[in-house]
């Protein structure tokens, strides 16, 4: 069963900590995405990547960075966590091609205290 795996389901971190959220997919997908999900705001795109070592900013990249050293792994980094980054984070991947659907991980609920 193909899947996207997010390393943590729940995380609690302190303000100012450097936080790593990991995402791994086993489908050989070129494209990977990080979203933030908040009530009433839907899914907002933070960063995405079309290939190894490539990254592009989404709609809300401030306070975040990403790393993609291997095709299957896409990491989201909070350089200095703040309380307004408390949220649900979703990773997704997809192939190039007509109308391909995204495959999502099950999310990481991050609380910054």
């Amino acid at each position, binding site marked *: 069963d193909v899947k996207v795996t997010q390393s943590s389901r729940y995380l609690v971190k302190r303000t100012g900590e450097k936080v790593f959220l990991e995402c791994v997919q086993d489908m050989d997908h070129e494209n990977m*995405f990080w979203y933030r999900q908040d009530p*009433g*705001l*839907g*899914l907002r*795109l933070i960063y*995405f990547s*079309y290939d190894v070592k490539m990254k*592009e900013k989404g709609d809300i990249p401030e306070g975040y960075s990403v790393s993609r050293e291997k095709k299957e792994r896409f990491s989201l980094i909070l350089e200095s966590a703040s309380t307004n980054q408390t949220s*649900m984070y*979703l990773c*997704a991947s997809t192939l*190039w091609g*007509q*109308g391909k*659907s*995204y495959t*999502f991980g*099950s*999310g990481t609920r991050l609380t910054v205290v």
Partner: protein
Amino acid sequence: AQTVTQSQPEMSVQEAETVTLSCTYDTSESDYYLFWYKQPPSRQMILVIRQEAYKQQNATENRFSVNFQKAAKSFSLKISDSQLGDAAMYFCAYRYNYGGSQGNLIFGKGTKLSVKP
């Protein structure tokens, strides 16, 4: 820029009845795809149904069907014979058939569906 609007933040349906979730979108393109995703309390986003803009026939997947009105830019989801397991957030999404960032999925803000026993 393309946008997707779900005008119903919350909906409720009685078990075994039918409910329709609304979605409208704005685009100047003609070659695109539309999706409905379901996110139950487990948080796993699941693809419910997919519609290709060039196909006039409405997509159907078991109890789930869509009413795709291309000229009106409307893409509603109908759930028949609602079940308790249908309770979830439902997201409508649009994807332009093009490479690069223009081909990224664009989501609506979601509709929370409750199913009453």
